[in-house]
């Protein structure tokens, strides 16, 4: 299976290549990708250099253009697609069907991957994207069990990529608007969930309080591991309970299911985290690369350090081993 690794900066890109990535995915410095964070991402020239560096090392570059085009501003996305193709991107990762149509008709030879943001998770949806736009690969939403993934793989005519490690969203990828209810911005449209401009932290005695757009969304006791300041990972008072209403601050880790995913016919494993630093990229990529190449009994030992990098310093296999009805 291929190892698909994140890069938010050229330095992280180089770390990913060095640590053993088969492909690195990245985006431009604007709202055309779902990690539109301050100081992050690539200029056109940085992308061109990254692609060249990757090719020199036998590593592919995938460019994420995985937000939905704003009416009246479609040119921003079309230009980004033009520039990604011109830079030599080995694939573009798209969510908006109109952008898929533009790329497949303008650049019929360009490899097209369907982003997790497109939220395609059944045979008919995937078949439509393959037949209409020539999609070669689909990144599956993190909502399916391993047997469901295996069933899909048997019945679709494209490669499947699944998230293996990193941040975990509520199970409505590409459809989640929670962030926009409070901040007016969402990952689907502006490429940013709970934008940093709306986040504040304050110390309250030994506690750390996180606020989003003026609303208190969490309070962490002294030395309690923290999470991202997103609404889905906020702690709320509901009836007589205080707790996580949507999901706990926890990261995805499905490396225990590596053999099952391989048997299921999965082509590629994706690491989440373009917003993370190059140290995260280097450590996670090298650990997963070592685990991929290790015999099953030696695998866990290769991954022991990763929980410390995780949100809330905990991991879960999430829906991959769904234990709820």
């Amino acid at each position, binding site marked *: 299976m291929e190892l698909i690794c994140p890069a*938010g*900066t*050229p*330095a*992280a890109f180089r770390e990913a290549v060095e640590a053993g990535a088969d492909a690195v995915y990245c985006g431009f410095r604007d709202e055309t990708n779902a990690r539109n*964070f*301050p*100081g*992050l991402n690539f200029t056109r020239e940085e992308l061109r250099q990254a692609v060249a560096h990757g090719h020199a090392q036998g590593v592919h570059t995938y460019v994420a253009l995985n937000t939905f085009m704003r009416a009246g501003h479609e040119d921003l996305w079309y230009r980004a697609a033009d520039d990604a193709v011109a830079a030599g991107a080995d694939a573009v990762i798209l969510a908006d069907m109109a952008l898929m149509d533009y790329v497949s008709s303008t650049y019929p030879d360009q490899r097209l991957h369907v982003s997790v943001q497109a939220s395609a998770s059944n045979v008919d949806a995937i078949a439509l994207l393959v037949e209409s736009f020539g999609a070669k690969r689909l990144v599956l939403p993190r909502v399916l069990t391993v047997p469901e993934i295996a069933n899909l793989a048997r019945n679709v005519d494209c490669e499947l990529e699944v998230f293996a490690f990193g941040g975990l969203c509520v199970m409505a990828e590409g459809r989640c608007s929670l962030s926009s209810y409070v901040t007016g911005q969402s990952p689907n449209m502006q490429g940013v969930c709970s*934008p*940093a*401009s709306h*986040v*504040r*932290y*304050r*110390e309250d005695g030994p506690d*750390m309080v996180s606020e989003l757009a003026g609303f208190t969304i969490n309070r*962490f006791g*002294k*030395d*309690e*591991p*923290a*999470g*991202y300041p997103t609404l889905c990972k906020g702690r709320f008072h509901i009836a007589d309970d205080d707790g996580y209403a949507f999901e706990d*601050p926890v990261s995805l880790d499905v490396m225990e299911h590596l053999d099952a995913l391989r048997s299921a016919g999965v082509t590629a494993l994706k690491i989440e985290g373009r*917003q*993370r*630093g*190059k*140290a*995260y990229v280097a*450590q996670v990529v090298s650990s997963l690369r070592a685990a991929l190449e290790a015999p099953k009994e030696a695998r866990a030992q290769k991954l022991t*350090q990763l929980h*410390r*990098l*995780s*949100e*809330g*310093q905990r991991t879960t296999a999430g829906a991959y081993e769904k234990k709820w009805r």
Partner: protein
Amino acid sequence: MLLPRPLSLTIDKLPVALVQRVVNQAFHRALQQHPDLFDRLGNEANKRFCFAPTDLDFVFLVHPESKFIHTFRKAAQPRADASIAGPMLTLLALLEGRIDGDAVFFSRSLSVTGDMEAMLALRNALDDCSFDLPRDLAAMAGPLALPFRRIAEVIRHRALKGMA
């Protein structure tokens, strides 16, 4: 990992003017070595960033646009748009991109307050910069550059091991 107590006590006894002189030299030398350091900041370059080592009595205020760094005693509480506080060696490791900022934040080893958009932009700018402080600052030690670099590398190695 905290600075050894005798070392932090010794540093704390230094006059502010002397610390400012050394820090200012190091800051401008780093800017010479990495002239594109603040490119990723965009409009955030006009913000004032405060770095507050929790194991020292000094804080450092940086204004990227005017390329100044100013040293204060902690009690002075200089006004900043965004602040980051944590052990000195953790802040230096972050500066070099040797550890992941989010992971350190999750572990509660550092705290951030103020304008998070500015702080995130600065974090990403630093992370892309490939600082290597022993290498970048060795020349400041003049004829002792090589031993300075070797000692600094040993200290860094031990500090990073302590954070693992």
